[in-house]
C-alpha cells in the first residue's frame, strides 16, 4: 500500500479555475489512497469540450443516427413545451396564492372546489395528441432496421468477450479485435453476439446500441451506411469511438473499441494485406517470434503456426475457440487492452507481465517470469513484424 497522497490537486484546481467553480468543495474530498494504476493512460490532462466529445450521441454521422436524432429532437421539443406548460402555471400559482402563516388565522378558507370535468377531460386528451407526435416518427424509425443483410451490404460479425471485442468479416476471411475497420459510405450489416456474458455494442456517433447476447440463435442485428470521410484525403482513416454499455463484470468500464472509417481503396488494401504473414526482420523480432509459441494457445497471427493450431482446435469435437484476441495486425493497432492504453512498448511490456494491473480480472496469464530482454523481443515481434503497410 502506498501512503495517502493528495490526488492531482493541480488537475482539479485547473479544472475548477477554468470553470470558476468554488474550489473549496473539491478540496474536502481530495484525499485518496493511490494503490492502483490509472485505468487509461493520458499523455496530458486536457479539458475536453463540454459537448461534442468522441462518444456524443448528438453528432449523428450516419443516416441511422440522424433518424434517431430526428425522433429525439421532436420529443425534446414536446418535452420542453410540456415542461413549460407545467412549470409556468405552477410558478404563477405559487406566487399568486401564497399566504403568510400569521395572516392565516384571520382568513376564511378559500372556496372548496372539488374539480372541473371539462378541464380534466381537456388535459386527458391533450397528452394523447402530443404523444402522437412522438409515436408516429418512433414507429417509422423502428421498422427501418432490416432483419436480413440487404443486398450489397458488407456483413461484420461482432462478438463481445470479457472485456474485449472481436470483429469478423466472413466475406473477407478476416478476424480482428478491438479495431473495427470500415469502408466509408458503405452499407454494413452487423451480426452481434457474445462469447460469455451480455455485452452491448455501441458506436454513439453511428447510432444506437444493440445488446450482444450469449447463446445460440440469439444474434442481434444492426444495419447502417457508414459515414463519408470528413476529410477526403484522410490517410489511415478517421476514428470513431465505441464502448460496451452493459455491465459485464469487473472491467466493464475498460471495454472500448475504435471504429476506423477508411477510403474505399484504403480499406481494400487493408483487407488484402491483412492476412499476410508477418515480416520478421530484426534479431529481436526473430527471438520474439520464437517466444510467441507460448502465446499461441490463446492468440492467433495469420500466416504463422498459430493459425494452423487454431484450425486444429476448431476442427476438434467439440470445437475449441482460442481465448484471446486475434493479433494478426497488432502492430497497426493504436491501442491495447481494448482501448485502454496506447500501443507503446512500455505499455505492452506492462500488459504481458501483469495484465490484471491494467485490466482487473483479465483472464490472460501474467508472464512475469520472462526476462526484460524476452519481453522486449516479443514486443518487437508483435509491434513491428505485424505492422503491415497498406
Amino acid at each position: 500500500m502506498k501512503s495517502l497522497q493528495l490526488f492531482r490537486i493541480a488537475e482539479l484546481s485547473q479544472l475548477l479555475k477554468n470553470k470558476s467553480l468554488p474550489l473549496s468543495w473539491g478540496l474536502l474530498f481530495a484525499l485518496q489512497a493511490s494503490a492502483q494504476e490509472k485505468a487509461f493512460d493520458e499523455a496530458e490532462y486536457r479539458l475536453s469540450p463540454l459537448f461534442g466529445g468522441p462518444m456524443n450521441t448528438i453528432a449523428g454521422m450516419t443516416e441511422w443516427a440522424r433518424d434517431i436524432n430526428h425522433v429525439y429532437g421532436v420529443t425534446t421539443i414536446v418535452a420542453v413545451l410540456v415542461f413549460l406548460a407545467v412549470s409556468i402555471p405552477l410558478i404563477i400559482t405559487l406566487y399568486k396564492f401564497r399566504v403568510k402563516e400569521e395572516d392565516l388565522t384571520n382568513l376564511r378558507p378559500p372556496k372548496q372546489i372539488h374539480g372541473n370535468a371539462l378541464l380534466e377531460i381537456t388535459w386527458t386528451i391533450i397528452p394523447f395528441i402530443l404523444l402522437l407526435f412522438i409515436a408516429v416518427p418512433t414507429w417509422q424509425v423502428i421498422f427501418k432496421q432490416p432483419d436480413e443483410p440487404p443486398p450489397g451490404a458488407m456483413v461484420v460479425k461482432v462478438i463481445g468477450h470479457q472485456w474485449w471485442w472481436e470483429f469478423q468479416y466472413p466475406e473477407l476471411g478476416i478476424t480482428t479485435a478491438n479495431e473495427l475497420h470500415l469502408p466509408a459510405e458503405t452499407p454494413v450489416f452487423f451480426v452481434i453476439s457474445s462469447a460469455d456474458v451480455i455485452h452491448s455494442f455501441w458506436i454513439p456517433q453511428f447510432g444506437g446500441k444493440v445488446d450482444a447476447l450469449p447463446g445460440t440463435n440469439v444474434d442481434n442485428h444492426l444495419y447502417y451506411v457508414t459515414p463519408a470521410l470528413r476529410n477526403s484525403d484522410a490517410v489511415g482513416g478517421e476514428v470513431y469511438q465505441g464502448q460496451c454499455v452493459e455491465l459485464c463484470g469487473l472491467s466493464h468500464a475498460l471495454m472500448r473499441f475504435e471504429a476506423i472509417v477508411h477510403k474505399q481503396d484504403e480499406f481494400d488494401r487493408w483487407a488484402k494485406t491483412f492476412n499476410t504473414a508477418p515480416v520478421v526482420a530484426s534479431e529481436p523480432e526473430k527471438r520474439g517470434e520464437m517466444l510467441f509459441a507460448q502465446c499461441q494457445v490463446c492468440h492467433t497471427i495469420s500466416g504463422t503456426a498459430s493459425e494452423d493450431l487454431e484450425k486444429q482446435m476448431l476442427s476438434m469435437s467439440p470445437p475449441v475457440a482460442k481465448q484471446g484476441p486475434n493479433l494478426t495486425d497488432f502492430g497497426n493497432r493504436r491501442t491495447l487492452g481494448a482501448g485502454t492504453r496506447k500501443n507503446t512498448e512500455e505499455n505492452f511490456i506492462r500488459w504481458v507481465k501483469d495484465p490484471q494491473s491494467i485490466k482487473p480480472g483479465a483472464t490472460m496469464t501474467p508472464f512475469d517470469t520472462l526476462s526484460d530482454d524476452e519481453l522486449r523481443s516479443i514486443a518487437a515481434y508483435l509491434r513491428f513484424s505485424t505492422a503491415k503497410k497498406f
Partner: protein
Amino acid sequence: MAKNLPRTGIISWLTTVDHKRIGIMYAVTALIFLLFGGTEAMLMRTQLIIPNNNFLSAGTFNGLVTLHGTTMIFLFVMPLSAAFFNYLTPLMIGAADVAFPRLNALSYWIFLFGGLLLNFSFVTGLLPDGGWFNYANLTGKQYSPSHAIDFWLLGVQVVGLASLIAAVNFFVTILNMRCKGMTLLKMPIFVWTTLVTQVLLILSLPVITVALFMMTFDRTFGTGFFDPGAGGQVIMWQHLFWIFGHPEVYILILPAMGMVSEILPTFSRKPLFGYSVMVYSSCAIGFLGFAVWAHHMFTTGLGPWAQALFSAATMLIAVPTGVKIFNWISTLWGGQLRFTTAMLFAVSFIAMFTMGGLSGIMHSSPPIDYQHQDSYFVVAHFHYVLYGGAVMALFGGIFYWFPKVTGYYLSETLGKIQFWLYMFGFNMTFFPMHFMGLEGMPRRIFTYASDQGWNFWNVLSSLGAYTTAIGGIVFFVNIFWSLKSGKKASHDCWDGRTLEWTLSSPPPEYNFAIDPEVRSLDDWWHQKYDGEGNKRTARVQPDVDPSTKHVPNPSFWPMVLAFGILVLASAPFFDAQGIPLALAGVVIMLVATYGWSFEEA
C-alpha cells in the same frame, strides 16, 4: 404468556404488534439504510469526480453500484413507504389496527433480517456486483463463482417475502376495516394509492420470487435456467425481472403521489382537485404498469412489433400521469398556500417528477432508447423520478406527519435549510447527468478517460452529491434536535383534513376512543368548517382509560418465525454443509408457527 409481556422498554418493541410502533420501526430502519445507501452514493461520486481515479477498485465500485440501487429501492424507499402505510392507513380509515397485527410484525422482522442479510456482504467482503437488476448470466456461477451474488439473491428474496405478507395485510385492512360511512370513494387519496400499491406488490412479487428461485437453483444446485451452455436463455431473466421491476417503479412512486396529494390540500386549504380522477389515474397507472416491462429491453432485440406495442403502452402511461400533475396544480390554484417544509417538498415533487416523467417519455420511444439505454441519461431520468419524485415526497411526508407520530414538530428552519440543500444539490447532481448521457457516458463504469468530454459534468455532479449529503446530515440533526427540544404539537397541528388529525399527537395505543363515522371525503375538514368556510366547533377524539380498550397482545413469535426464515435463507452460503442449517430454519419456523397458533391474539 403473551399477555404478561411488558408494554414499555426494549422487550415491548421487540414483541410489539401495534401498527404505529411497527411503522416507527420501519421508518427508523429505513433511515438507517438510507445512511448506507447514501454513503455508497458518496463513495461512487468521489470515485467519479475526476477521470482515471483510483479511489475505489473496480470490484468495490461494481459492488457499491449494486448495493446502492438495491438498498435505496428495497431497504429505503419501499420500507419508508411501508412505514407510512403502517402508521397512517389504520388511522386514516378509522381502524383500531391492521387486519393481522402479528403478521404485520412478522413483515417487519423479515424485512429487517433480509436487509441485514444483504448488508452482511460488507462484513464478508463479498459485495454482490451484478447491478441491482442482477442480469444473468454474468451472475451465474461461472462468471460470479463466489457467494457475493447469493447475498443479493437471498436478501432480496427475504425482503420480497416481507413485502408480500405486508401487502396482503394492508389490502385486507383497507377493504375490510374502514370505519362507518367510509366508502371506497370517501377514502383519503393516500389510502387509495396504498391500496393500488398493495395490488401491484401482490401481483408482481411472485414473479421475482420465481426468478430468484430459478437463479438460486442455478447457482446452488447447478440447473441451467439462465445458462446458454445448458440450453437456458439469459433473456428470460430480464423478462421475469422486469415483469416485476416495472410495477416496482410504481410501487415506489404511487405512495409518494398519495402523500403529495394529502400535503398539498392541507397547505392550500382546498380539497384535492379531481379526487375521483386521481383515484382512477392511480388505478390506470397500476394497470398499465403490467404491460410495459419490455421497454427496459428495447436494445435486446425484441423485434420491431414488440417494440412498437410496448412503446405505445408506455406512452399511454403519460396520460394518467399528466392528469395527476395538472390536478395537483389546480389544487394549489385559488388556495391559501403556506410554505412549510412539507409543502416545499411536495411542490418540488411536482416539478422534479415532471422532469423525470418527461425524460421517461423520451425513453418510451425505442429509437431514442437505443442511444440512451444504459447511459447516464437514464441515470438522470430515474433519479428525477425516484429521488426528485419519491424521496422528496417521502421527506415531505416525514415533515408533515412527524408531529403526529412524535408529538413534536420538526424544526422548520433546519427543514428549510435541508430542503434548499436538497433542491440545489439534487439538481446539480442529476441535471448534468443528462449531458453526460448525451455525451455517451455509460452507466456503471468505475472510471473513464479524460478526453471524453465528461470531466466537467462529473465534477459538477459530485459536488452536487456532497451538497445533498450535507442536507441529509441537517435532516438527522433536525430529528434529534426536534425530539429533544422541538415545538409541541397539538391534535390537529396543520389544520388537516383526514381522520388521523382527530387523534392526540402521538395517538394512544388503541387509536380511536370513539369509533369514528364519516359522511364525506375530508370529513374532518367539514366538521371544522361549514360550507361558507366559517369555523365551527369540532370535537377531537377524547382520551380514555387504555385498559377499557382492547388492543392486540404483544408476541415474540413473529420475530422467532422471521429468524427461522433468516436461518433457512443462510443455508446456501454453506453449500453442502448448509443442509442442517436449512433444517434448523424449518424447525424454528414450525415451532414458531405452532406457538403462534396457540397464542391468544
